C-alpha cells in the first residue's frame, strides 16, 4: 500500500513540476528550467512524451520476453502476460504518437512530416495492430499463443532497425537525430540538473505505473480464462 501512495506523490510532483515550473534564460532557483534554443517552452513535453514512447518499447520487450517463455514452457499464463503487456503497449504507443504529433504541430509546423522517429513509431503501431489482428484470427488458444509468440519475436528483431539505427543515420527534425546541432541529442542531455531529475523521476514514475497496470491486466486475463473454462466445463 505504501508504494501506491509513494507513486501517487511521485506522479503528482512530476505532473505539477513538468507543467508549472518556469523556463528561464539563466536558471538560478531550484525550480527553474534552462532555456534550450530551438525547443523553447516546447521542451516540457519531454516529461510526458518520452516516458510514453519509452513504455511502448518496454511493453513490446516484455511481450516478447513472455512470448519466449511461452514457447519454452508452453504455459498459457505467459501468453496472458504477453497479451497484457501488448495491450498496454498499444495504448502508450498511441499516446506517444498523438502527443508527438501535437508537439510537432507547434515545433515543426505540421502534425506529420515522416521524420525517422515518426516513421519508427508508426511502424511500431503497425506491428501492434498486426499482432492483434493475428490473435483475433485464431480460435484455438494454444495455436493462438504459439503463432502470436512467433510473430512477436520476429517483429521484435526488426525493432532495433526502427528505434535505434534509422533515426540516427537518417537526417530528421526530432531532437537527437544525426544532424541535430541546436536542440540537444538524446544521448547528450542539454538539460540542467533539476530538469534531468524531474525527467528521470517521470520515467521512473510512469514505469512503476506501467508495471502496476500490467500486473492487474494479466491477472484479470488469467481469471477471465479460468471462469470461462469453468462455465464451459
Amino acid at each position, binding site marked *: 500500500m505504501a508504494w501506491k501512495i509513494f507513486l501517487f506523490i511521485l506522479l503528482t510532483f512530476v505532473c505539477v513540476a513538468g507543467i508549472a515550473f518556469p523556463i528561464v534564460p539563466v536558471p538560478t532557483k531550484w525550480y527553474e528550467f534552462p532555456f534550450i534554443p530551438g525547443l523553447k517552452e516546447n521542451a516540457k513535453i519531454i516529461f510526458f512524451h518520452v516516458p510514453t514512447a519509452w513504455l511502448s518499447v518496454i511493453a513490446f520487450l516484455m511481450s516478447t520476453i513472455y512470448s519466449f517463455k511461452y514457447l519454452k514452457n508452453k504455459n498459457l499464463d505467459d501468453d496472458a502476460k504477453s497479451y497484457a503487456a501488448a495491450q498496454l503497449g498499444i495504448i502508450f504507443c498511441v499516446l506517444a504518437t498523438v502527443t508527438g504529433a501535437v508537439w510537432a504541430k507547434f515545433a515543426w509546423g505540421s502534425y506529420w512530416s515522416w521524420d525517422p522517429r515518426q516513421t519508427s513509431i508508426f511502424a511500431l503501431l*503497425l*506491428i501492434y495492430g498486426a499482432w492483434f*489482428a493475428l490473435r483475433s484470427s*485464431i480460435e484455438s488458444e494454444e495455436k493462438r499463443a*504459439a*503463432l502470436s509468440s512467433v*510473430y512477436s519475436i520476429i517483429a521484435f528483431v*526488426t525493432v532495433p*532497425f526502427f528505434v535505434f539505427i*534509422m533515426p540516427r543515420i537518417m537526417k530528421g527534425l526530432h531532437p537527437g537525430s544525426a544532424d541535430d546541432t541546436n536542440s540537444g541529442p538524446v544521448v547528450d542531455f542539454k538539460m540542467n540538473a533539476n530538469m534531468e531529475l524531474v525527467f528521470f523521476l517521470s520515467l521512473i514514475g510512469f514505469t512503476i505505473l506501467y508495471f502496476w497496470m500490467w500486473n492487474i491486466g494479466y491477472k484479470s486475463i488469467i481469471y477471465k480464462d479460468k471462469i470461462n473454462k469453468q462455465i464451459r466445463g
Partner: protein
Amino acid sequence: MNSKALALYQKDFHSEMRTRYAVNSLAMFVIVAVSVILFSIGNETITQSLTAGLFWVVIFFSAMSGLSRAFVSEEERGTTLALQLVAAPSTIFSGKLLFNLILVFCMNVVITVLYSALFDSFAVKNFALFAVSFFFGNAGLAIASTIIAAIISKAGAKGTLYPVLSFPILLPLILTSVQLTLMSFEGSTFLDAKFELAIIICYDIIMLTASYMLFDFVWKD
C-alpha cells in the same frame, strides 16, 4: 541445405509446372500493377526517387500476392501431415525458402526489365551497386515472406492478413532498398552506400536466423 530440401523444392517446382497457378497469377499481377502505375502517370515525367519508390511498391505487392502459396497450398491440399512425417522442420523451411527465393528472383528480374523498358527515369548508373542491393533485398524479402507465410497458413484468415503481417516486418528492408535503388540511379559508390548495405545484410542474417529458430514452433501443431 540437404538433398531432402532439394527434393521438396523439386516437388514444389513440378506441382507448379503442372498448373502454373502461382507463376501465371504473379505475371498477370505484375503486368496489372505496372500498367496501373503507367496509366496514373500518363505523360508526366517522374523523378528518380519516385521511380525507386514505385519500383519497390510493385515488388512488395507482387510478393504479397504470390509468396503465401508455399505453405497455404500444403494446408489446402491437406499434405501438411505427410510433410511433417517425412522431414525435419528446418528441411521443410529450406525447401520452401529455396522455392520462394527463385520465385522472387524471377519475378523481380521481370519487374526490373519492365521498369527499365517503360520508365525513362529508371536509369541505373552504378550497375554493380544495383545488383548487390537487388540480391540482398530479394533474399530478405523471400526469407521474411516465407516465415510469415508459414504463420498465415496456420491462422484462420489467409488472404487479407498476409500483407498486414508482412508490412511492418518488411518495412526496414523496403525503406533501405528504396534508398539503395535511388543511390544506384544517382551513381553513388559502394563507399557512399556502406551504411545501407550493412543494414540490409544485417537484416537478411537476423531474419534467416530467427526464421530457422522459430519455424519449429509454427510447423508443429
